[in-house]
């Protein structure tokens, strides 16, 4: 068992060396860091408002703004497309660059290889998006000064942040499993990405048992702040209205779905062959 862990750690280390903070991943970092820039701009704007004696956002408004930012941007766009880029490339990019055979010629069970690559992708996604969520939440209300600090130290701020981070982690786990699987078996990951995206957004219209085959379904109920109903916008079709699921059911449910996909990917990887020419 010790040597298996050793091997998985070696795969993770190699993957991180190859992919973490490389030029080709610039757009993932852009996706993740865009909200940080936006919330920084927000805090600067609000501070200037206050400096000129104008009334800025209330603390409650800021928490609501962050909830909106998290649910519409992070969850449905940033983390989703970030996971498409990170996870579907774990195997697909190696096939395109004709380097996967180096892994297949190492004395490691393919199952552990899938796990190692998946964990390395998860680590990158969680660090990048976790940092972005944390920074964005901190910056969105920074202009509140002591009240914002108190919101974190004495109020529900820290709990909310932990919940957002948990949702981001679970989203990375869920989407990561889906796209590592897609990257192994589909030549053009754009197709499964589009299918999953449409599926996730069709969720409100699906029958109850099909709703459960969606990552959004499990995450919706974990959000600490409920979004107010808004008037339709040009992208209102992005909003997914799922039925609430208790957290004690949502978290293990999502983990089970991700695990089932990963197990299937690992079993199928065992039968995978090197055929770069296809």
């Amino acid at each position, binding site marked *: 068992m010790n040597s298996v862990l050793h091997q998985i750690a*070696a795969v993770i280390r*190699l993957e991180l*060396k190859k992919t973490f903070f490389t030029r*080709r991943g610039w757009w993932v970092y852009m996706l993740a860091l865009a909200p940080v820039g936006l919330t920084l701009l927000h805090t600067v704007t609000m501070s200037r408002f206050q400096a000129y004696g104008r009334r800025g956002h209330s603390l409650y408004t800021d928490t609501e703004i962050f909830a909106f930012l998290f649910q519409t941007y992070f969850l449905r766009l940033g983390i989703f497309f970030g996971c498409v880029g990170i996870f579907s490339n774990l195997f697909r990019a190696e096939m395109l*660059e004709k*380097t996967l055979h*180096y892994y*297949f010629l190492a*004395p*490691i069970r393919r199952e552990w290889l899938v796990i190692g690559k998946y964990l390395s992708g998860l680590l990158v996604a969680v660090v990048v998006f976790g940092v972005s969520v944390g920074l964005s939440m901190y910056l969105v209300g920074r202009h509140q000064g002591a009240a914002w600090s108190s919101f974190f130290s004495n109020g529900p701020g820290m709990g909310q942040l932990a919940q957002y981070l948990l949702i981001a982690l679970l989203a990375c786990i869920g989407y990561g499993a889906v796209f590592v699987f897609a990257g192994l078996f589909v030549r053009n990951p754009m197709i499964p990405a589009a299918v999953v995206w449409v599926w996730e957004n069709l969720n409100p219209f699906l029958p109850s048992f099909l709703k459960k085959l969606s990552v959004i379904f499990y995450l919706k109920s974990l959000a600490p702040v409920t979004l107010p109903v808004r008037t339709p916008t040009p992208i209102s079709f992005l909003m997914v209205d799922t039925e609430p699921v208790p957290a004690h059911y949502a978290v293990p449910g999502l983990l089970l779905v991700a695990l089932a996909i990963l197990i299937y990917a690992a079993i199928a990887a065992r039968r995978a062959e090197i055929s770069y020419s296809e």
Partner: protein
Amino acid sequence: MSDGLITFSDVSRFYGEALGVNRVKLAIPPGITSLVGPNGSGKTTLMNLMSGLIRPTRGEIRVLGVSPDRPEELCRILGYCAQFDAFPKGLTGFQFIHSFLRIRAMTEEECQRHTWTALETVSMADAAHRSLAAYSKGMRQRIKLAQAIAHDPRVIVLDEPLNGLDPLARAETIELFRKWGAEGRHVIVSSHILHEVDRISDQVILLSQGYVVAEGQIQGVRSEVKDQPMQILVRCNQPGRLAASLFQQDHVVEAKIHPDGKSVLLRTTDADRFYLLLNRVVMEAGLEVESVAPADDDVNSVYQYLIGAEGGAV
């Protein structure tokens, strides 16, 4: 007994409707074995099959008793230098070898030691910390070789290993093959350069259009090619007289005096009877023979006889 061999039992591999290899039955002993054949004859397919990168459509393969279906066992005893000139991005030569050794669950010290040994074996220690992207074609070929042998495998599979190497590196690499073969390892080499294959191989496997056309030691293979008369070059003091005496026999089909006037090239359909006859003629005529050597029992000739017409150029 078969645990010391690489065996293919009636192995076929199809790519959809296209044939990779068909009905291959082989038992490859230790030493240097060369796979020879034109493009598309199935050399790489055979190598990929024995290293587990692809699976047979039919039949069974065992590499020293291990099934390629179990990469976790097979890759401990096998090293494969594939033909693809591609490397993981962003690594140095040292990191490339070291990282994949780490996946073998070796300790850090072992990894370091094996990495440096492999780099020194292919004379790449000086360039170890340079980025792979900055390597020349020959350096890339050598670092691939180093990565394939870094874990000290018993079976070394090398697909076109001499490609891109300069003459000096080529000679050094061939010496390495010889050394590994002499140590009792299995060294499976595919190459287009027939005279080099000829120099280093203990046995050859000739492939054409997915079928094994011949296998074994090259002289043995040549002797089995009955429909092509053997060519024998005899250097002696009276080549004309020798040619006249031998040409009277029905199994000697051609005799050609070399322009230098010191040797004669003879073609015979029965080598055993020819050698007996040659001894007799030399004794009777009192000729002084300098050398007698087969002129077409090299890989190139055998290749031309067996594959040449259909295989085209290699």
